[in-house]
């Protein structure tokens, strides 16, 4: 079939997909007339089992990939989409163990990415640490921002520590930081913010890029005390499947905080949904 318009759009946002790869291509904020090329894909770092410099293996305590370049889960995603009035969805299938739904709800100023990752295959004998990476053309000059400890947002500078002279020996792990609810990158005009639904590790390994670790499955203990590799079996001993959400906000650097602070609060203290059979009692406004 000839590629149609791989676009979903609501009142606030337009999301464009590359028909040749199935990957996210552009996000546009229609209210502010901002258009940002954004490529998003899933990759995995090969977990280190130790090397000549250091016998430290990646494990429960330690994140230590054996190289700085992650591997694609897939360079292409198979797509289908569902367009309705209330919600528009693009389904991306990257592999048998990695998929994602990109959603735009009517009236909502964010893009929802619901990812499903696992069971991570280990038949090749390689431990894997899976990331979702966003690549943009923002001139970030090595800076990115995380909200460690769920309190103030801290500026992070790649290969830098504020209180001592850092000799970076781990270009990936040495730049990973805790992300409790949000991570963002920005230039002087535009900010791309990703809200998480759980604590994750995150970084900006390259200028204009942003990544979050969504799942990991390892074959070696890191010898820090736990005494077991991070190898959760899950149902039927096939490995855990993890499903989560990332909310993407694109706005001006000045007004992004208005968006992400309220939205993150709503995610953290989400409404409680309870059901009851039958038609139910009358509503009591009080």
């Amino acid at each position, binding site marked *: *079939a000839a*590629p*149609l318009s791989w676009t979903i759009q609501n009142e606030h946002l337009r999301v464009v997909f590359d*028909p*040749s*790869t*199935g990957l996210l291509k552009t996000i546009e904020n229609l209210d502010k007339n901002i258009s940002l090329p954004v490529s998003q894909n899933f990759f995995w770092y090969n977990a280190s089992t130790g090397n000549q410099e250091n016998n430290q293996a990646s494990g*429960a*305590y330690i994140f230590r990939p054996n190289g700085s370049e992650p591997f694609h889960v897939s360079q*292409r*995603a*198979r*797509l*289908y*989409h*569902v*367009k*309705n*009035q*209330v*919600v528009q*969805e693009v*389904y991306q*299938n990257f592999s048998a163990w990695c998929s994602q*739904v990109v959603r735009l*709800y*009517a*009236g*909502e100023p964010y893009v929802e990415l619901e990812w*499903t990752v696992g069971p991570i295959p280990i038949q090749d004998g390689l431990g894997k640490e899976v990331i979702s990476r966003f690549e943009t053309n923002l001139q970030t000059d090595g800076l990115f921002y995380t909200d460690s400890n769920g309190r103030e947002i801290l500026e992070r500078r790649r290969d830098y520590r504020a209180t001592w002279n850092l000799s970076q020996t781990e270009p990936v792990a040495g730049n990973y930081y805790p992300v409790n609810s949000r991570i963002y990158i920005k230039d002087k005009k535009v900010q791309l913010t990703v809200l998480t639904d759980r604590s994750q590790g995150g970084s900006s390994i390259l200028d204009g890029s942003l990544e979050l670790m969504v799942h990991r499955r390892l074959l070696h203990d890191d010898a*820090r*005390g*736990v*005494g*077991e590799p*991070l190898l*959760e*079996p899950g*149902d039927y001993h096939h490995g855990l*499947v993890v*499903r989560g959400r990332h909310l993407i906000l694109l706005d001006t650097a000045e007004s992004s905080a208005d968006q992400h602070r309220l939205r993150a*609060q*709503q995610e953290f*203290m*989400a*409404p*409680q*949904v*309870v*059901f*009851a*059979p*039958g*038609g*139910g*009692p*009358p*509503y*009591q*406004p009080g």
Partner: protein
Amino acid sequence: NANSSVLRQAMGVAQHHDAVSGTAKQHVTNDYAKQLSSGWDACQTVVSNALASIMGTKENFIYCPYLNISVCLLTEAAETFMVIVYNPLARPVDWNMRLPVNGSHYSVVDPNGQAVLNEVIPVSSFTQAVRRDRGYAANELVFRASAPPLGYRTYSVSRRPGKKPALARELKRLLYRPG
């Protein structure tokens, strides 16, 4: 018979860095999960009592912790059911509901008796693979709920007889393989 202490104690145990960061042995990790699950089970009675108190009526409240994989035995099977949305924030919020269902047409009515725009879309193959044999919903009912500050709203959902076999008119579903 409500008791929130079970969850309180489980949360206390889960402050250990092993629980926060995932650095425990597997059987300890399993126990953290079990304690939290037991705590939440106990707290459901607390929440049910609170809802019964503020609603002024006792209901058989049902909780569906597997909504993220489209599993909820009540919504999958019932012809009519009630959705109660409690908002813990001190400002009104809107929330997009996604409920696993097996019908193809539904009526959703808000507390004022107004019909709420809703759609029924098929459960994705991704979700079917994840949930395995835990649920059999073919579709998801999607609608936007709103809730007042520190308060709740109830939505009544009724299944309508559908003559069409499967969503053909509403859905614009396109299959495409890149390259």
